[in-house]
């Protein structure tokens, strides 16, 4: 079959009209998204807001981690959340109950957030309210370990959650997502004694197999609440971000 137009004439015999030319383009397919992401990043940098893109499978505890984070830091760090889900306002509501500003993006059938969706959300969700500047904006992406990895939103940091109720070989199964991570959080770590098949060491080994030096830390935002190492990491990131902003 002809590869040019799919007709039944063998490819080498297929005539090409004289007015056909091939032009070299060599442009990234994500250029339009990346351009919008750059625009978002400029917007974030104007208020000096640190933006963290939170990604994981559905149900690995992103919202719960944010609820507990809000409870612990909201008196000293001004945080806000953009939620991405296919439907419902539920997650944004959960965060508002913690006294945090939250905006829900309902993606409909889209399995990921993209820079344009975030851009549009920012029109309704300012980073400065009553003279108060948002220190950290969390973007909780749609629960999905595949698609969100391909779309830059303008964030400064990517955090990927891996819960102990999943397989510890997830980094090997979803290399694109885990390679994009600046931090991997092993969530629901209080369940480790009951999860015989999940070994943190094996998860770390699978992550190293991707040729990355990404740090790994554990959180338990459930009953045995312990997210101290995460809060410490957040504080460190915020300090680092502010220093970088001053230099820039």
């Amino acid at each position, binding site marked *: 079959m002809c590869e040019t137009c799919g007709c039944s004439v063998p490819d080498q015999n297929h005539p090409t009209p*004289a*007015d056909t*030319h091939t032009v070299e383009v060599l442009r*990234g397919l994500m250029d339009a*998204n990346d351009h919008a992401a750059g625009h978002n990043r400029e917007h974030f940098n104007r208020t000096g807001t640190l933006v963290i893109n939170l990604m994981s499978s559905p149900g690995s505890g992103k919202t719960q981690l944010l609820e507990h984070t809000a409870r612990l830091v909201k008196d000293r760090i001004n945080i806000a959340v953009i939620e991405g889900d296919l439907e419902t306002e539920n997650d944004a509501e959960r965060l508002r109950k913690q006294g945090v500003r939250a905006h829900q993006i309902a993606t409909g059938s889209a399995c990921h957030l993209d820079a344009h969706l975030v851009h549009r959300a920012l029109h309704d969700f300012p980073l400065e309210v009553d003279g108060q500047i948002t220190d950290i904006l969390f973007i909780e992406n749609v629960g999905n370990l*595949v698609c969100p990895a*391909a779309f830059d939103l303008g964030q400064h940091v990517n955090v990927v959650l891996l819960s102990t109720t999943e397989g510890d070989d997830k980094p090997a199964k979803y290399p694109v997502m885990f*390679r994009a991570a600046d931090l991997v959080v092993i969530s629901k770590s209080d369940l480790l004694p009951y999860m015989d098949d999940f070994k943190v060491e094996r998860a770390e080994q*699978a992550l190293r197999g991707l*040729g990355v030096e990404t740090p790994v830390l554990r959180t338990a935002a459930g009953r045995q609440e312990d997210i101290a190492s995460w809060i410490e990491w957040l504080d460190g990131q915020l300090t680092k971000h502010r220093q970088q902003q001053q230099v820039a």
Partner: protein
Amino acid sequence: MHELSVCEALLAQVRATATANGADGVGRITVRLGPLSGVEPDLLAQAFTIARNGPMTAEASLHIETQPIRLRCRDCGNENEAEANRLLCKACGSYRTDLISGDELLLARVELHGVSRHPTNSTDSEQQERPDHV
């Protein structure tokens, strides 16, 4: 399945290229794709058959050039090919490696129709010899 979004972005670029060159149609579209781009070639090809229906690209075809994953080791300097989930140096086993290729997601080239400076004599084009693909 984000391949449909990626495909729509691809076709937007293709149409922009065609318009910029004064073309009236698009033939073969060549895309360069690495396994670490997060885009599956088969799904992109499938999405293409849906997304191409629109101005200028209804008759277009998609050709995907898959790129190998290649690494350079920061410890021993060795360069080697690798699997998507085993990005370690094959010489010394180090995980301190840099990706040289394998995450490409590029529109490489587009075949444009109707860009001739003498567009009047296209009726007997079947008599013309087919030039090699660039």
